[in-house]
């Protein structure tokens, strides 16, 4: 028989003024297992806690019930208290006779007292069935993985590396830099994007704690927090990175020209290439799909001209598996494909371009060397129309959400046009102008007042070619009249959408994503960088549309979380997890499907039954991944699964106690 002690708290008058505490304490002596009970003014106070400790020793108590406030308030306090008395910290239960009793039944002291007795009875019934639980420790591997080498990934990696941890960045493209590398200037300061990004790229590449794995992708993720085993596919570069000096001769001599992805097909690159001149690492790859040698077996010029002998056509994809303690996902975004929108011409008019195209057109190292020329005839445009919310806030044809950065970059584009083409006219069609951010609204106002951009509130219903010009027809909803503008160039602020492979990567990592394939944070307010999978964190636009400052801030936040995790060699795991009674588990796998944390898998065990060895499958819970929700216990047909500390037996005992 267990020896339970009951401690009834008055909480000053909070409880004592309504509930007859001495009577509750007296009644508690009748409950099975209770050998000692007492009431006191403030149980949580120092003398109150001392009182419990002393009682445990004097009365040889092995279970404690504290009838006081909500366990959400003081459960940890009393757990530490009984621990101090030499008991397992899970040997204490609380009866909530304040929030759930005295405070809500203030006018009915008798009924409140009766209820308090019931609550104590339930707690006693539960506590006698409490099992000692120990927080387990799992080792933490002091190495982090950052997936995605854009500004968010680079920032996260730098912060983690500067704190003294080793970081690998996996980037699918041949160079790190991401979308920010394609951008010309940044709002609201009009800083040159490359000027602030490239130093960070260099810093990441030269940092002793950072390893760059470019032209690589995550293939498989196994394990759990502190111990992720990640298989990374290093795509064959066809260039030996150790030997290549990055002289660029091969790129000069390669005869095969291909549309440049970095320049959005507005200029050419070679089949052996770096995406852009400041690429990091600044060593080329061979695009095997387009390379003449790989297609016909002839050519081989790059190999012949390479002074270092670095070109290696026989290179194969390499797979490496490393163990990581934490993972930051920073795979960024893609742009909405506006060619699905008929009113803007289904992508068939060459002078209807996206904002990112514009960034390249206005960039000094871009295809036009920074002169704004329209793609069709390379003439300088005079009338430039910008259309915002292309695919954003448009559930019928695009996405229902606001892409957040477009209002500001459109304002930026407008100022850049006005600065470079003095006699230009700017027309901006908008639904709303959203500029929450430091210095953002001021920038927008400058665009209108100083730069004279014409903001037209309304949607464009049609764009069509008439001769050399584009006719943009829309509505000015403020003036309530149709508008028609003869434009030379139309720039669409296309929505930010999730990366095409975002869903697949989420499945590999076991993290959630929303209807638009943006990753789901663990809590929208209080855990915005965590995911539901412990040890996996989010940074940047893969979690939702973001501008650069926000991406950087979230990256640093994710890095802080990673550093917190990696700063210890071991981490404690919560012992309230599911456990399997293998002898009655039928191995049906229902629990495997229901677990939101992928914490359960089937394993094979062998047993001796009537002299024969039989193999069968049973469920196996990974305590590192299990969060203790208990969904599996209900799904289990044979009741082989049970949640520690909230077992079927404990809950039923409480139900019984309530009714007796």
């Amino acid at each position, binding site marked *: 028989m267990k020896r339970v002690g009951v401690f009834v708290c008055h909480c000053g008058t909070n409880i004592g003024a309504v509930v007859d505490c001495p009577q509750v304490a007296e009644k508690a002596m009748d409950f099975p297992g209770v050998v000692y009970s007492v009431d006191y003014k403030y149980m949580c106070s120092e003398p109150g806690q001392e009182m419990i400790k002393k009682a445990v020793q004097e009365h040889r108590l092995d279970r404690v019930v504290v009838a006081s406030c909500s366990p959400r308030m003081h459960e940890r306090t009393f757990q530490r208290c009984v621990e101090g008395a030499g008991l397992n910290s899970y040997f204490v239960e609380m009866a909530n006779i304040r929030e759930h009793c005295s405070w809500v039944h203030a006018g009915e002291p008798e009924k409140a007292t009766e209820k308090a007795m019931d609550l104590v009875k339930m707690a006693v019934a539960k506590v006698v069935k409490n099992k000692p639980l120990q927080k387990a420790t799992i080792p933490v591997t002091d190495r982090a993985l950052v997936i995605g080498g854009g500004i968010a990934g680079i920032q996260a990696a730098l912060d983690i590396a500067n704190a003294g941890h080793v970081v690998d960045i996996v980037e699918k493209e041949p160079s790190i830099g991401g979308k920010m590398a394609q951008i010309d200037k940044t709002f609201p300061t009009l800083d040159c994007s490359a000027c602030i990004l490239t130093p960070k790229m260099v810093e990441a590449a030269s940092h002793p704690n950072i390893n760059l794995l470019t032209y690589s992708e995550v293939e498989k993720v196994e394990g759990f927090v502190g111990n992720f085993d990640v298989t990374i596919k290093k795509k064959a570069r066809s260039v030996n990175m150790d030997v290549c000096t990055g002289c660029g001769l091969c790129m000069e001599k390669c005869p095969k020209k291909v549309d440049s992805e970095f320049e959005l097909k507005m200029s050419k690159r070679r089949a052996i290439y770096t995406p852009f001149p400041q690429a990091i690492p600044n060593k080329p790859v061979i695009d095997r799909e387009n390379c003449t040698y790989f297609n016909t077996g002839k050519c081989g010029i790059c190999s012949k001209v390479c002074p270092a002998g670095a070109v290696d056509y026989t290179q194969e994809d390499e797979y490496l598996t490393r163990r990581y303690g934490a993972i930051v996902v920073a795979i960024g975004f893609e742009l909405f494909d506006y060619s699905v929108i008929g009113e803007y011409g289904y992508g068939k008019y060459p002078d209807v371009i996206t904002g990112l195209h514009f960034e390249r057109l206005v960039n000094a190292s871009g295809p036009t060397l920074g002169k704004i020329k329209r793609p069709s005839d390379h003439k300088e445009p005079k009338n430039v129309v910008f259309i915002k919310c292309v695919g954003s806030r448009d559930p019928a044809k695009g996405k229902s959400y606001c892409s957040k950065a477009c209002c500001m970059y459109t304002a930026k584009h407008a100022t850049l046009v006005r600065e470079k083409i003095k006699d230009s006219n700017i027309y901006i069609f908008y639904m709303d102008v959203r500029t929450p951010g430091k210095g953002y609204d001021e920038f927008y106002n400058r665009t209108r007042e100083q730069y004279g951009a014409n903001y037209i509130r309304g949607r464009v219903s049609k764009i069509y070619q008439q001769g050399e010009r584009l006719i943009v027809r829309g509505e000015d909803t403020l003036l309530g009249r149709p508008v028609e503008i003869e434009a030379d160039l139309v720039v669409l602020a296309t929505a930010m959408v999730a990366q095409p492979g975002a869903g697949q990567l989420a499945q590999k990592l076991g993290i959630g994503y929303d209807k638009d394939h943006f990753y789901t944070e663990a809590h929208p307010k209080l855990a915005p960088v965590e995911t539901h999978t412990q040890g996996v964190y989010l940074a940047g636009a893969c979690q939702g549309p973001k501008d650069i400052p926000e991406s950087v801030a979230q990256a640093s936040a994710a890095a802080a979380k990673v550093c917190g995790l990696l700063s210890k060699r071991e981490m404690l795991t919560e012992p309230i997890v599911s456990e399997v009674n293998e002898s009655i588990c039928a191995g049906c796998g229902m629990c495997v499907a229901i677990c939101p944390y992928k914490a359960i898998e089937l394993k094979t065990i062998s047993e001796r039954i009537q002299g024969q060895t039989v193999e069968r499958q049973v469920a196996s819970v990974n305590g590192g991944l299990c969060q203790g*929700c208990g969904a599996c216990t209900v799904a289990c047909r044979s009741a082989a699964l049970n949640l520690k500390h909230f077992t079927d037996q404990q809950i039923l005992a409480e139900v019984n106690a309530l009714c007796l």
Partner: protein
Amino acid sequence: MSVNEVTWQPKILVFACNWCTYAGADLTGLSRLQYPATVRILRVPCSGRINPQFVLKAFQKGVDAVLVAGCHPGDCHYTTGNYFTRRRFLIMRRLMEYVGLEPERLQARWISAAEAPKFQQVITEISEQIRALGPNRKLRDEEWKI
């Protein structure tokens, strides 16, 4: 324990998830919102932890009504737990109807940690409903005394 019709008071068991409804009930207390002393709250980590067996057992042991309460759909601390609860509840409720128990005796509500007035209102409503219905005679084990 046998039940006496004269002194009978409804006894309602609330299974409350730790993250939303239990916290909502705490807030009800902090806000000093009053409700009938007919309920006893049993804390579970997630509404998805509530086994239909617990509910049946409660009725068998003489509880007059059971309220299953958890986070709003989409707000579950464990992402999906309350979706399972919702499905299980709908089946449970049909079972209750099938065996002839008044469906009002088994209810489910989504009450967030911020919805103290809702908690108060739900408990008050259910208490009134059950008071009007009278004691649970159908499923209880023991004798009914007059």
